[in-house]
């Protein structure tokens, strides 16, 4: 009762303030823009007060960290207990080269590994496939077989460190390689921890590294959920991603809505198979972007936690761990500029800070040279140091959800949740996520946002330092990563040797068994593992699945 009166009083006083104080200030210092709209086109007011969040009940809507609705965090003491994992996405050239980079990063304080694969690997082709021409090792490490996986993790204790692998189309197969490598080292499946991205829906929508059509791809994913919770319990069998959706040009609200929508779709698919939600849901993880609008990003992560907790509850989850939206964050690659690359360090710092204030479980910070090439050693070291400074020197880790209660942040969090549910409705009316993908709905939304962003940039409605203001006419001269030119040749020899020296009879037998299983309904993971253990290559294994499942062709959506 008293609260309502307080709000009324505030409103009255604010009207007073607007008339007498604020309007005078605006006359002296006219506002720099007609409307202040954030990147999601939400109009931001000059001031937020308790009135803006008057509807919020602390106990039911905001709550405590570690308790439903998890708005303030999934861990009760977050960074006070354990800092986020510093996990730098890395990979280039051949497995040996990347192994050296992993050792470098671990020496300099990173606390988890993250593997970037090259395009042929992402599409399930061996390094010597004709389509791999020119692509070997260029944007990630080339992994064609278990041999490469062994080299990639040489000297790294897989029972002591977790690994995230950004792989989607052939995720099940690459995961099998990781598992097989660990087993060969005497490490049990129950001891290894990590994540496979394995999020095919966003491939169709944004990243485009799909292989098979939606239905068989979903089947493979549910196979990994099932295999994971039964045999590899410490493994996150999916990283439901918004990062790529954002990089493709979406707004923060679209990133939030489309990612969580995809997540719900995966849960439903697994439940349709007969899996119990509380068995697999605790191992679902998420992956978000950390973009430029500082407060919007923080609000986004918070809203994501609350929405996910609510949706999982609706689907019948009882285990608290099923309600946790745990996420990895990467700072926004698309915001980095080729011009004046050093200033990217500043951008990444702000973006990383937003992720930390949003409560991320693990973080990758981009390097300053990423609009030019893959990161050099120095650049990636600075990126890592950025995280370490935030962790050790800024004090933001001293308390949980420091921005909770901010009138602006709580209002924006609510607003983003509201807009997300509008998108959920839209997709529902289109028949669900997969029909919406086939109708090009997400792709169109993203293309529109991307185009609008470009127009605003070109028309200088949004300023990007060094790009459309504060430009510098200089030669860009920072050291660019150079890769070993002999890598591709070595890989080619390695593959030839492998194909000669392995037991080809066994390989063929295992591939046949995989084909048969793929035509049926069994869980494919054991069959894939068998193939991998006998040193079937990535390409050979994927080719079998390509034959059975077919290949996906996307529609043209602008």
């Amino acid at each position, binding site marked *: 009762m008293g609260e309502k009166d307080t709000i009324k009083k505030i409103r009255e006083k604010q009207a007073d303030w607007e008339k007498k104080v604020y309007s005078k200030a605006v006359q002296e210092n006219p506002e720099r823009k007609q409307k202040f709209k954030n990147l999601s086109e939400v109009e931001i007011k000059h001031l937020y007060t308790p009135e803006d969040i008057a509807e919020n009940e602390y106990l039911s809507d905001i709550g405590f960290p570690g308790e439903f609705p998890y708005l303030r965090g999934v861990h009760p003491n977050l960074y006070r207990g354990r800092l986020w994992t510093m996990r730098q996405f890395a990979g280039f050239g051949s497995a040996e080269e990347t192994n050296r980079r992993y050792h470098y990063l671990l020496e300099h304080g990173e606390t988890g590994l993250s593997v970037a694969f090259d395009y042929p690997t992402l599409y399930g082709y061996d390094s010597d496939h004709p389509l791999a021409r020119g692509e070997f090792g260029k944007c990630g490490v080339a992994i064609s077989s278990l041999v490469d996986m062994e080299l990639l993790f040489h000297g790294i204790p897989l029972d002591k460190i977790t690994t995230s692998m950004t792989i989607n189309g052939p995720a099940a197969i690459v995961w099998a390689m990781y598992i097989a490598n660990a087993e060969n080292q005497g490490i049990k499946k129950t001891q290894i921890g990590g994540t496979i991205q394995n999020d095919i829906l966003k491939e169709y929508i944004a990243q485009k590294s799909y292989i098979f*059509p939606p239905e068989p791809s979903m089947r493979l994913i549910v196979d990994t959920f099932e295999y994971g919770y039964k045999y590899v319990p410490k493994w996150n069998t999916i990283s439901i991603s918004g990062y790529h959706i954002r990089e493709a040009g979406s707004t923060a609200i679209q990133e939030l809505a489309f990612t969580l929508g995809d997540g719900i779709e995966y849960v439903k698919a697994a439940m349709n198979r007969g899996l119990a939600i509380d068995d697999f849901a605790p191992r679902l993880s998420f992956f978000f972007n950390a973009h430029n609008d500082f407060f919007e990003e923080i609000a986004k992560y918070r809203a994501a936690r609350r929405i996910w907790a609510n949706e999982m509850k609706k689907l019948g989850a009882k285990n608290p761990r099923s309600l946790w939206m745990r996420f990895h964050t990467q700072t926004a690659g698309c915001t980095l500029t080729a011009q004046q690359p050093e200033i990217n360090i500043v951008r990444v710092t702000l973006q990383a800070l937003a992720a930390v204030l949003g409560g991320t479980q693990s973080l990758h910070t981009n390097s300053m040279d990423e609009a030019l090439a893959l990161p050099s050693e120095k650049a990636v070291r600075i990126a890592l140091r950025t995280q370490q400074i935030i962790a050790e020197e800024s004090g933001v880790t001293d308390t949980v959800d420091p921005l909770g209660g901010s009138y602006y942040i709580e209002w924006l969090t609510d607003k983003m949740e509201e807009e997300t549910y509008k998108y959920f409705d839209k997709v529902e009316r289109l*028949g669900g996520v997969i029909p919406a993908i086939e*109708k090009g709905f997400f792709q169109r939304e993203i293309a529109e946002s991307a185009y609008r962003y470009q127009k605003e940039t070109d028309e200088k409605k949004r300023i990007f330092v060094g790009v459309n203001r504060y430009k510098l006419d200089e030669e860009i001269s920072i050291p660019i990563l150079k890769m070993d030119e002999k890598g591709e040749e070595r890989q080619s020899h390695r593959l030839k040797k492998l194909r000669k020296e392995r037991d080809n009879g066994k390989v063929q037998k295992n591939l046949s068994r995989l084909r048969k299983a793929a035509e049926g309904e069994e869980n494919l993971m054991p069959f894939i593992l068998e193939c991998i253990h006998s040193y079937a290559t990535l390409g050979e294994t994927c080719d079998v699945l390509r034959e059975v499942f077919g290949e996906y*062709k*996307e*529609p*043209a959506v*602008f």
Partner: protein
Amino acid sequence: MNDLASRVVNGDHRAIGRLITMVENDEPDAINAMKEIHSHAGNAQIIGVTGVMGGGKSSLIFELALAYRAEGKKVGIIAIDPTSPFSGGALLGDRIRMMDLSTDSGVFIRSMGTRGMIGGLTSSLYDVVEILDAAGMNIILIETVGVGQDEVDIVKIADTTLVIVVPGLGDAVQTIKAGLMEIADVFVVNKADQPGVEQTVAELESMLDLATHIERRTPIVATSAKEKKGIPLLVRKIAEHQEYAKKNKVFDVRRRQRYEAELIEIIKKRLMNFIFDEAKLKRKVDCCIDQISKKELDPYTAADEILGIMLK
């Protein structure tokens, strides 16, 4: 023989591409080549593919093309997309579904913008069909824009017209506006992997029951480009229609109508070019328009004057 024309007749893709550009741009140099190739054309079967956007026309055309290639036939594909009335530009994205065919020398795919022409077609379409025909294509598939009432124009040029309907895009009957019922030589219920197929087929059948003025009962074929189903049946129904048309002289009538339309199109273009490009006449025309705006002259008298000058 005109060099360009002879290269076209020999099936040289580069020459075909060039000549198409020239007719689209109304280049006078194209006319001699067009004159020469006409006698080499007339053998191809022209199949028009029309229907709402989102109907999967491009994928279906891709599957049809594959089927015809398997029969050893050469296939030409014309994919039409709308030209923006504001910018005059166009995003031609139909080809993306057919890129697996881009290295098959027995296939020629050309993307075209409507360039201001309503009717879902382009004014140079007759020329392009003649070019592909003369170049040796056995089958020419034309994918129209597929928006609204405008789709009916395809019947002027196609020997066989397919109308694509999709289940689940609302009431299938509603999507067939007046006119499409009559022009369909074959109804294709595409995306038959989606729910609602039987209902859509039933709706079409009952519409056909009521359309007593149509001579031949239009066949309905359910296809799924995704699952590659129904294509052989579709190919058969198209062939059956061809046989029927040839037997009943419908084919000859339609062809004649097509050439009539083509001739009208060429004359119209020439007349308009003459009136609006020829300097002396253009001045007269501009002057008339000013006078009409000021109510000093009425349009009919203006036309009399202009035509009077022309015919002198």
